């Protein structure tokens, strides 16, 4: 079904094939079908995600990109029915017997609006660890410092770690939320429009943070901002009508997309 040919000999879909000998694939979806009730919301999205890269998911509202993203760490449980395989390091995590909390520890999620807990910055970052019974102050201090530094917000909050995280600016709060996701040492970071509530300066800082983080993590980001996808990501997936239409290197998608529909969308001639 993949890479079929449409009008003008341009393909209707194009999905990038990674060379398995040269690339380490962290996550992969196979035969994924996602239903809200009886409505098929997402299908035709056999995608692979390469370790230590940033992949951007773009597409109009309702195209299925957020639905797809949420499936990757089982956030659709109880909301939608997810059929097919979601392979994380070769293991299908879309199995009922899989520990969903362990999945979410390894595959962290950061949301559109910064959602710090009504707790101190320190407790926000250490919340998950404390819940798992880690109370050693030295260990927690270390985690707080490391993750806030990774999220590039340490210098701004190091003197006010006991202040409520709700008092932070949007950009700072979002980076504290990233630190919170990093505290449990995930492999994969999923971000659902993490900059849409931020001003340009905070957005730039967030993007710089993500570029740093990709050295250690595999990052998948949903964004409505095509310039952001262009300047930030290594790979881009274009979704439309619940299907992955084109998946290719970002440079290709924004200069010479294979599929006409992708061309129309990234050029703003869509619909």
């Amino acid at each position, binding site marked *: 079904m993949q890479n079929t040919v449409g009008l003008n000999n341009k393909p209707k879909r194009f999905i990038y094939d990674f060379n398995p000998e040269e690339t380490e694939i962290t996550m992969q979806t196979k035969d994924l079908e996602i239903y809200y009730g009886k409505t098929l919301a997402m299908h035709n999205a056999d995608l692979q995600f390469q370790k230590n890269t940033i992949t951007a998911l773009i597409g109009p509202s309702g195209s299925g990109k957020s639905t797809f993203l949420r499936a990757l760490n089982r956030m659709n449980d109880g909301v939608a029915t997810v059929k097919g395989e979601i392979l994380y390091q070769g293991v299908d995590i879309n199995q009922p017997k899989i520990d969903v909390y362990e999945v979410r520890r390894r595959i962290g999620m950061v949301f559109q609006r910064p959602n710090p807990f009504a707790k101190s910055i320190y407790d926000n970052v250490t919340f998950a660890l404390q819940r798992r019974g880690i109370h050693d102050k030295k260990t927690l201090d270390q985690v707080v410092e490391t993750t806030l530094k990774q999220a590039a917000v340490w210098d701004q909050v190091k003197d006010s770690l006991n202040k409520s995280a709700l008092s932070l600016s949007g950009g700072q709060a979002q980076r504290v939320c990233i630190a919170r996701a990093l505290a449990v040492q995930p492999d994969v970071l999923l971000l659902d429009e993490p900059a849409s509530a931020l001003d340009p300066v905070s957005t*730039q800082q967030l*993007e*710089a943070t993500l*570029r740093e983080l990709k050295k250690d993590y595999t990052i998948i980001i949903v964004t409505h901002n095509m*310039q952001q996808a*262009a*300047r930030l990501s290594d790979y881009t997936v274009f979704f439309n009508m619940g299907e992955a239409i084109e998946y290719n290197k*970002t*440079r290709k998608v*924004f*200069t010479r997309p294979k599929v006409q529909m992708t061309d129309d969308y990234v050029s703003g001639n869509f619909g």
Partner: protein
Amino acid sequence: MGKVFDEEIITLKADFMKLGALVGEAVTHAGQAFVDHDIQKAQAVITNDHDINHLQIYIEKRSFEMIALYQPVTGNLREVVGILKAVTDLERAGDHARNVARSVIDIKGKERIASVEEIIATMAQEVSQQYDKSIESYGDADQDKAKKTAQSYDKKIDELYNDIAAPSYQAMAKNPEIVSSAIIYLNVAKDLGRVSDYSTNICEWTVYLATGKIIELN
């Protein structure tokens, strides 16, 4: 614009300067080959022209990508657009150097005029210097140097062209045997003149890079 763009523009400019050096070498070697009747050197210039063309295409492709991916504005836009425009001038200057190298092969075994070839030697040296200074001015975004370079060579190069053309025509009128060589001299002088024109264009792009103004320096 951010660190990634800054890093990429440094690489792009480094590639552009590398192309500048390759073309500079082609111009110098083609002139020397003509003066020294050095077929081997001329052949090397012709062969290396492929590298020049490949690098030019690569630089153009990277420039397009940078515009598409980063949508640069103001000074950043001038960095990319300046390279995109000037890279064409470099490649064409390279083509004319290759033409001079071909002339070295064409003129082999033909009757020659030593006095004209002396002037060609001078013109080749002057054009080579002008080209080098133009590229330097672009590398340093030095508009003063660019303006000075364009203005100081313009008249000199025109005069040298005429100094080659006039005796070539006279020789042709006197001796039909010399026609084919004289035509080659005229072509070489014209090719060198074109390299000089492209050097001036590069100086104009230097002014654009530094100020955003598009001007004619001649």
